[in-house]
């Protein structure tokens, strides 16, 4: 295939459609991705849906693994950290946090 032909093909290719990120945050019952969901959040960068605090009483996925099977890509998981001496029983934020994403094409 000549350079000329390649350039011609590229010129005929449709421009890529813009991408937007959907983010799903799952809080699980332990550090295993197949453990049950105890809390969740959804942030939709496409603007198609608006999620907010208190908008659902049942999680979108029963486990993190169920989200993977539905096409969500895991991109961050909370670390397992040792417990500070003297503060072993202090509890604060939810412990097992997993961030997933989907990249969605939108109309330009």
């Amino acid at each position: 295939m000549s350079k000329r032909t390649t350039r011609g093909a590229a010129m005929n290719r449709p421009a890529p459609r813009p991408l937007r990120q959907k983010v799903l945050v799952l809080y699980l019952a332990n550090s295993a991705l197949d453990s049950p969901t105890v809390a969740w959040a959804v942030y939709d960068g496409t603007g198609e849906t608006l999620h907010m605090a208190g908008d659902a009483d049942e999680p979108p996925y029963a486990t993190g693994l169920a989200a993977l099977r539905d096409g969500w890509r895991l991109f961050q998981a909370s670390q397992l950290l040792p417990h500070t001496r003297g503060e072993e029983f202090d509890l604060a934020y939810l412990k097992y946090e997993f961030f997933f994403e989907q990249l969605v094409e939108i109309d330009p």
Partner: protein
Amino acid sequence: MTSGPLLSSVQMASFVARGFLRFDGVVPDDINRQFMAEAGEIPEAQDGVRIRKLYGEALAANAIPEVAAGTPLADAYPHGSALARLLDLPLVRGAVESLLGDRPVFDHHFLHVTFPPAYHAAGGGENVSQHTHQDSTIDPRTAFDLQIMYYPHAVTRPMGGTRFVPGTHLRKVSEVALGRYQNIRGQQHMVCEAGTLLFLHHGIWHGGGVNLSDRTRFMFKIRMHASGPQTRRWDLSDLPPPNSGPGPQRPIFYRKTAPEPNTVATVLTTPEPWFEQDTSRLEYVNRIRLWRYLAEDPTFDVDYWMTRLETNPV
């Protein structure tokens, strides 16, 4: 302020474990109507007028007084006002005394108004729920303040209602740092009849629900704290004397029957739907510690959670 009927040990244990007590429809209608009159009218939505402006003007014009922080609760409201009458209800007096002791002190109050969609559309704002948060700031105390949420009119699910998550009150977090959590298993929405009261531990995670109805929603919150010891102030008649030791405790894990319901031990070791599998046990430890503080009983234990940690043979 004289006392009313005191809370039972099981009610206190429920407050320790779950961080709330709910009393539905306990404020008489005439007090509810008086309160709504004193809270004043909210003007109709007007194009170009922001909610903040309407809200500010309504608060300035209503009959609910400003009250200085640190005022004795008994002196916070004018005699005969709706809030003075509410606080003088025997149920309220008894519950407040059980949780804080006598002579509680006023911290602050606020009239929460949640507007229907028409107001947001007219004012150019977005109609969304409040992020889940813990009030005030990081609070490492074992002692607790009490927040009374008063619902002077019926609240339906479309009106939003206060959202709260039972059992979160013992977690030491920094106000709205937890706003990322949109939904938590077991969260509750205050759908209730007029005159309902929700007594909250100051640490409970909560937020105002979005109002999707055509009615403006009101909720009045009063925060108060103890002026002296808040320990052993409830109806202690069914409680063993302090320092009697835990004695032989009930069988754990390998049990052939369900634990007896409605006991202090069972209530303190009942999990919430959102509990993580490992930290649920730390929640039990922290509940037992709070019960020890309130009961003035450093030997109290349930299911060996503390005994195991405190057994340290020389």
